[in-house]
């Protein structure tokens, strides 16, 4: 057994195959990404932080009823029921978007949701104005 192992080691440590592999790797592109220095690129159609088009909302509350993790709460804003998303519970399945008859929920590429205060992990309906509906800026800037 030991003879076999030592023979194996001698054969392998000086094998030209390994040397070739090692040297060729010196000139290869790195496999890792320089995140967060370089913002991570997520795929098109990524299910990130929700963007709400509240002007379309008809207050039906189906999103809150169907949500698998009970992350959506219907709150009253200006006398109308609107969805409030608890992101700490959200599993980003976007069943709400499938259920919604008026396409209120839209995806975004925002995935960096780490916070130090958990109570801020909500998407409140009143805080969304048409101006904010536009695709959010790359979030990596804050992490540099």
């Amino acid at each position: 057994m030991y003879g076999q192992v030592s023979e194996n080691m001698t054969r392998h440590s000086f094998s030209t195959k390994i040397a070739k592999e090692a040297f060729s790797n010196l000139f290869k592109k790195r496999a890792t990404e320089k995140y967060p220095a370089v913002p991570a690129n997520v795929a098109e159609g990524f299910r990130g932080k929700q963007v709400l088009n509240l002007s379309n909302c008809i207050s039906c509350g189906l999103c809150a009823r169907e949500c698998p993790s009970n992350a959506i709460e219907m709150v009253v804003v200006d006398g109308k029921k609107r969805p409030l998303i608890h992101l700490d519970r959200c599993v980003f399945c976007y069943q709400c978007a499938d259920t919604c008859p008026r396409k209120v929920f839209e995806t975004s590429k925002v995935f960096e949701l780490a916070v130090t205060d958990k109570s801020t992990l909500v998407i409140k309906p009143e805080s969304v104005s048409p101006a904010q509906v536009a695709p959010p800026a790359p979030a990596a800037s804050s992490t540099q």
Partner: protein
Amino acid sequence: MTQTENIQELDIPKLVGASFKADNLPIQTGAMSAVQAPPTKVHDILKVILDADKKSALTTISCLDLGENLGVYYHMRLTKGYFTIKTEVPKTDPKTQTITDLLPGASFAELEGTDLLGVTYEGNLLSGHFMLSENWPIGVYPLRKDVNMAEVKLVPSPPQEETDDPNVYKLTIGPQHPALIEPEKLSVTVEGEIVTNVEPRLGYVHRGIEKATESRTYLRDIYLVERVCGICNPSHARVFVAAVEKILGVDVPPRAKYIRTVALELNRLHSHLLTLGHACLEMGFDTLFQYLWRDREPIMDLIELTTGNRVYGSLMAIGGVRRDLNPDHIPKIKATLETLRSKLPGYRDTYQNDKSLRLRMQGVGVLSRDDARILCCVGPVARGSGLEIDVRKDEPYEAYGEIPFKEIVYKEGDAWARMNVRMDEVGESISMIEYALDHLPTGPIKVTVPRIVPAGESTAAIEAPRGELFYYVKSNGTQNPDRVKVRTPTYANLPSFLKTAIGQNYADCPVNFVSLDPCFSCTDR
């Protein structure tokens, strides 16, 4: 060849009916093929099936609360399809005979029924808990319908039994152990370096998902069962929706079938690369581990591209899929797969021929073909022992009936064979995805289904990366299912470790164990 043809013609329901003509047992067909039998007959029926069909074995035992009685359903895997032996025991005295004399692999399935529903199997008795926590009161069975969970009072954990015998030396692997990423405990008795006994303790990550499904709608359950396991989540979602689709009698559109197949095979790719790398880590071959995980990353990106998320795709819906495959993405998918394919021969050569890897894996945890069958092993573990079972071949689902692929079988039965089954399946999966993308049908991706599922029951199975994943779903005609039973591949493969570890070096335990590709999050549910 003639033998296999004969087996395929074998009609098990008819055979059971003929063999037990005098008893006049009612046979059930439709979404679930089954026979209703008294508890005393189960053993005999099982023996008839096992003798007639040489590839048959037990998949699992579903226990369920039927009101007055407790149902004990033995789900058998046949060469083609599934067959259930249904029996009922009174709730006041839920006793039946064990079948572990025929199939030792049924032991875990029986113990789970004892712990969660209180069905006792004479000959396989449980002391303490098997799945539940130590401080759960004995005699309270959480899966029974009359249990009020709010009233359950936890009891102090009993002290751990210590043996005084100086000749017995016990080592514990887990619940926290460098070789196991997830928590599970294996008490290993050793004599010197040699293992003489292994006792498992499951349930460290038991989350009661089976119970939780009963209080949620079918739609919400899809996302819940997806979270039984992180690695093979599309398999769980797909097998649950398939079981519900069978009850509903819904046919999935062809395009959805192909998209599901692509998602499932991408999942197999990433899972196999993960486990091949993890095994290298256990054996101290960090270079290959890093290489394999580097090449797994583009597959994760493809999953993100096709489903919208890196891990939880949430692609499956009852009646189809939720997201169409964008034709613009197909060239990118193919190019990524081609890159992976070009790297495979090198990895395969290393896995097959590298002397260090062979020394660590060959002859470790040898499982014979017969043992693999009676221990009810599934997936790459069974195929590594020469047992040709693959749900994709035996009972083709989705597009697998139309896609050509080779069933990978190794005869050696050791850790080396099990890992090489996975290595070769990576290549097969790549070809299957490419074929599916080339032959993607057009048309709708989803059919509308009613929210309320009619009363009925069905079983569904799928070849998840770790092996056959089996669900039994019973509907009572409401929005919520009545019972969802999950039998995960690791649960079926664990008994084989208890056998193969004995007589081996203690130091080989981690490699042997990792070669099963264990997933405890799955196992414990």
